[in-house]
């Protein structure tokens, strides 16, 4: 149980990254692949945030005068993830617009049927 308690966030984020990348490789529907990309994105964000966590930590905000700076969590991964989430939204929107355009051109979302994209 001690192992699970101390590594549960790492395991969960690895699970999310694994699921996302597996969907990306194994599925052929374009919308499912984009969903997989987004799940992997969430996994990476969770991994970065959990690396910055410290035991019984507080948010890195000096909102009250008597907060212990030693117990504040690492602000650098939080700053990275803050922008990464917004960029993730923009990339998701861009990928979905590509999917719509491909569907209008080929009348299918199956990547095996789109001849030029087959692997």
């Amino acid at each position, binding site marked *: 149980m001690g192992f699970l308690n101390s590594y549960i966030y790492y395991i969960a984020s690895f699970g999310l990254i694994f699921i996302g990348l597996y969907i990306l490789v194994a599925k052929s529907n374009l919308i499912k692949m984009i969903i997989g990309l987004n799940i992997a994105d969430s996994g990476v964000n969770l991994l970065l945030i959990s690396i910055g966590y410290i035991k019984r930590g507080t948010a890195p905000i000096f909102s009250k005068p008597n907060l212990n700076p030693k117990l504040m969590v690492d602000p650098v991964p939080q700053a990275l993830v803050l922008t990464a989430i917004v960029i993730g939204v*923009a990339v998701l929107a861009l990928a979905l617009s590509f999917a719509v355009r491909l569907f209008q051109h080929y009348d299918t979302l199956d990547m095996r049927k789109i001849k030029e994209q087959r692997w």
Partner: protein
Amino acid sequence: MKMRKIIGLILMLVIILAVAATLVKIPFGAPKTKVGSYYIENGTRQTGAANIVTSVVLNYRGFDTLGEVTVLFIAALGLGAITFTFNKRDRKGSLTPSSLVLKTGCKFLFPLILLFGTYIFIHGHLTPGGGFQGGAIIASAYVLIYLSCREKEVKRNRLITIESIGGLIFVGIGIMGLLFGGYFLFNFLPKGVLNTLFSAGIIPVLYIAIGFKVGSELAGIIVDFITS
């Protein structure tokens, strides 16, 4: 097809094991990195912002944030270019009009959500939040209004104008820092008293600019998708 799944699984396992092997050296809940401790110990004194994440995003790594905003802008630009080539069709006629309750509720909620988003990005240096989060909340208000009242049209040109002004304010403040302090994005305004609204120098101004920029960009993405 079977082969492809097996290859995929093996590939995933290799990637996961490689990353896990490096992460074993960073135990969960361990003390933070040197740079993080430095920001926490000196952040409030050097930047005047109570929220250390904000001072990292806009002061220590302000140039990075300009890059992130540019990435968002390029994504929105590419999306606009792709949706411009969509085969246009008339969707307004095929949709059933929404009911009176839905329309009134959304019109009631719309200004409140805008107000909340504005609150989030104005208080970015004091509380959790900031320009990116506030902008996303403002864009969610546009989703609501577009899904409920389809006949309401948002002027795309106005969104583009707001977006450009936001970006210009960001770059302009950076260049003013170059003039006053000698380097780009120098914090030339007075830092004020910690934990008050008018503190932290240029950080609230930059976050207001980012809030308007991100909000109008994400709203523009939604408008592009729904109207095409």
